[in-house]
């Protein structure tokens, strides 16, 4: 399945990408699995998305946990804790 993955703020700068298409094997249906695939790229990806790092995920524009389901065509955003207001 194909996902649109977005990065914001400090993460966008560190990873050097704002938006990409990520292809996952069918059956990988959880946020945690997408993160495993991204970390497997190594380097800055493994470092910035390490399990202990403080980042947030939204699936289709709703805040989501590591166990949230993802489906073909979903928009997944990964970003630092928000600092508006």
């Amino acid at each position: 399945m194909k996902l649109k993955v977005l990065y914001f703020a400090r993460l966008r700068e560190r990873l050097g990408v704002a938006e990409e298409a990520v292809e996952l094997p069918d059956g990988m249906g959880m946020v945690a699995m997408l993160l495993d695939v991204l970390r497997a790229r190594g380097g800055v990806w493994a470092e910035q998305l390490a399990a202990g790092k403080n980042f947030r995920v939204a699936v289709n524009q709703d805040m989501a946990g590591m166990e949230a389901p993802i489906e073909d065509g979903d928009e997944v955003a990964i970003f630092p804790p928000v600092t508006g207001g």
Partner: protein
Amino acid sequence: MKILVDEKDFDAGAEIAALRAGNPHIGAVASFVGLVRDTNAGSTVASMTLEHYPAMTRRALEAIVAEAGRRWALLDVTVIHRVGELRPSDQIVLVAVASGHRADAFAACEFIMDYLKTQAPFWKKEQTPAGARWVEQRATDEQAAARWAE
């Protein structure tokens, strides 16, 4: 309900006046304006850039306001949040809540600000004498939002 995300400045007084106009059941309007401070975390701040996640921002603000409406008896709400480049003393955010009574208006206004601070996808980058830096979320913001857990 009015929710707006905009690069342009807003007129807080006009927004509050519009919020309360025409409904004589309104007895209380609580509002909050957040402003850019000239110092933060020990450095002077020359300017600040607010980035957001456009597809999600409005949806997140609507969800926060809807949740406030479930918890308190509200008559109307306005939320305006700016994005783009701002300077010290510039307005960042307005939350204004109209209700019959002040306890509901105060609680909902503070709730919306606390949730906005932890749930709405905005990020601040400050220009300081030592260079640009992303603002880190403060632990007190997480704690403030956690107070409202049901």
